[in-house]
């Protein structure tokens, strides 16, 4: 403390030294105060229950599109997860392979704003190849710079070793890393990796507003159809055949179940209990 006082009493050139000292103190505090908990993606969300209480705050989460046409939905869902996993105001690094930009388009600021991401928080990194993109992702999360969203088309360089590097970097750097594997859709979803979570994302039909006067209906808010392919950790129970239809609500800042009421099922498909219950009510009436 005496040293610092001496520095203050001295010249303004010493301000950078003070600044560095404060940065060191802050960094140490941040390292002590953080927890390795999970982040719930919404309030009372079925998807959260399937994941065992949400996604790990510091870790690697993989997203694969269900089909070739679902790349836009997969990257948008990746963006939503990256938003939810970062602390408010943190910088988001979006690392994409060049091929992804030509195939699925470049990130577009006005649309991102409407989705709830301030483009001022966004840093875009275009990598020439998948390997360069993975290296850049690792650099970002290891350096504690912010949440990283990666988007790669070539799955060849991404294996057990590469995913473990990413996962360890994310845990060391205490930031989340969301990786969209765009080419892994369809039959190539089963591959080995060290990630704790793998989600399959498809676009789901929105609930369109009613058509008027023979015109086409107007599209409603976006929905995602999410399937949990892999979820590690206690409490996670994820039968892979269940599809969760969720929507992102930018005003609430969380995911919501798109169907608050389950759709009616045909009677022969109804579970046994439901049929029994119906019979009992029929009798009592």
């Amino acid at each position: 403390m005496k040293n610092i006082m001496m520095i203050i009493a001295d010249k303004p050139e010493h301000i950078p030294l003070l600044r560095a000292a404060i940065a060191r103190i802050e960094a140490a505090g941040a390292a002590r105060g953080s927890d390795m908990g999970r982040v719930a993606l919404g309030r009372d969300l079925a998807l959260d229950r399937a994941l065992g209480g949400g996604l790990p705050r510091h870790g690697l989460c993989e997203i694969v599109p269900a089909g070739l046409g679902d790349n836009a939905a997969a990257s948008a869902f990746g963006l939503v997860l990256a938003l939810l996993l970062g602390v408010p105001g943190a910088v988001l690094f979006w690392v994409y392979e060049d091929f992804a930009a030509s195939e699925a388009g470049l990130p577009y600021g006005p649309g991102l704003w409407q989705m709830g991401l301030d483009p001022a928080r966004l840093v875009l990194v275009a990598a020439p190849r998948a390997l360069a993109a993975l290296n850049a992702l690792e650099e970002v999360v290891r350096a504690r710079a912010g949440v990283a969203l990666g988007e790669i088309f070539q799955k060849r360089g991404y294996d057990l070793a590469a995913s473990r590097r990413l996962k360890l970097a994310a845990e060391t750097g205490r930031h989340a890393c969301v990786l969209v594997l765009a080419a892994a859709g369809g039959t190539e979803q089963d591959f080995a990796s060290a990630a704790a979570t793998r989600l399959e994302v498809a676009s789901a039909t929105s609930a369109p507003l009613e058509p008027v006067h023979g015109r086409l209906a107007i599209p409603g808010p976006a929905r995602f159809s999410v399937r949990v392919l892999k979820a590690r950790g206690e409490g996670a129970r994820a039968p892979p055949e269940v599809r969760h239809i969720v929507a992102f609500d930018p005003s609430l800042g969380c995911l919501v179940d798109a169907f608050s009421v389950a759709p009616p099922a045909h009677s022969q498909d109804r579970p046994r209990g439901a049929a029994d219950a119906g019979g009992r009510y029929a009798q009592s009436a």
Partner: protein
Amino acid sequence: MRAAATPKAPDEPLATIAKLKGAWRLAGLDARASTLGLRSGMGLADARAMHPGLLVAEADAVAEAALYDQVLAWCRRFTPLVAADGPDSMVLDVTGAAHLFGGEAALGVDIIARLARQGFGARVGIGPHPAAAWALARFAHQPILPPTIEMARLPGIFADFPVAALNISEDLVADLARAGLRRIGDISLRPRAPLAARFGADLLDRLDHLFGQARGPISPRFAAPDFSVERRFADGLTREDVILTHVGALARELCALMTRHGQGARKIVLTLFRVDGAVRSLEAAASQTLSAPDPMLRLLREKLERLNEGGVETGYGFDVLRLEATQTAPQKADQTVLAGATGSDGAMIAAPSLAEAAFVSAVIDRLSARLGAVRVTRLHLQDSHQPERAVRHVAALSGAPPVGRARPWRDAAWERPIRLLARPEAVETLALLPDGLPQHFRWRRVLHRVVAAEGPERILSDWWKSPAPDTARDYFRAEDEAGQRFWLFRQQQAGAGATWFMHGFFP
């Protein structure tokens, strides 16, 4: 220089030839050829008649220019201020640098010896100003004047030099010779007005320059750095880890030097001079001023790792390492650079800690050094209605987008896609609905059926900017059966009806 590749006996003359007005003429001569009475500009047939054994090669202007640039870059090992001067000469400002090499005479000997080792013959003249050095290098027996020489003595020293030492055209030299003026002394002692009237004022300007009565500027090829530190070694360094150690020491020296002046570096250049004359420069830029050696070293390490990829191998080793700060800024807090400190509408959002902002800029610097500054970008909103012009990717190294000047993002009234194709792609439409929207469309060979749509939203191009404006576009937001949502637009083509394009994607 094709002939240079084939081995030749040392006593065989070699010349390059160039086609001038339809005839092959000698362009450049080696030392042996110039002693045989051959001159550049002589016809090839005449030269062959005099010396049938003359080896010739066609002059390659591009390769010669590259070689010249390489030598010019190499000359920076003696001084940071190096200027090009004609096709075969260079000007080095060694003011205040000569004593580092043991004085002017030793410096001249050193330059000649090092160039000779690379295979170049050279003459060196050192004088109190560029014009004098130019004349001394070409026409003097004693080509080095002490820097302390009095200007009044120069007319006496140069009196016996030929008038060509004034760096004037050959025609003017011939005109002067016709008038009987062959030496500089012949001119300098004559009245100036008649000379200016007959030969032009330029002649007298040159004379004034030579005598130091007027100073001409020299335009250095490389900007002088703000701060510079260097290390020289008797032997070339070859091992990468040794080089890195010394670069680290240089970084510490540079930081100490800059801190003493309250400055930090925005751009640093590491120059490595190889023993055999090759020069390699590595440049790294930073988004925030660098004033600590560690981040500086990390940036340089990114570049040094790829040192061998650029075609320059370590070879015999590097004997001079120089680290320069070519762009500096005061070491002070720059609030707008702190990433994410304010939202784009100027409101404070939960500010990340100071440490985190430092981490962010460090990562931006490293990734920019590795991938190139154009690959690490931030989005800036522009004042344009045309969707592809409304957003610009700006290198993240140049800092966060300016707050307040740009239109805030939230002004975008209609729904916009989150991804935009760099170039709209043509779409094949199949059945048009009454609204004008297709019921089916084929894009990238996949058929989509539209179940819901919103539009049209008409967007006009910036007709006041481009001379031949596109026609208006009608944008639709369309959803297909699977729930994929697209941003399509229709454009009226002159005489061909409407054409449809895919432009972006909604989540």
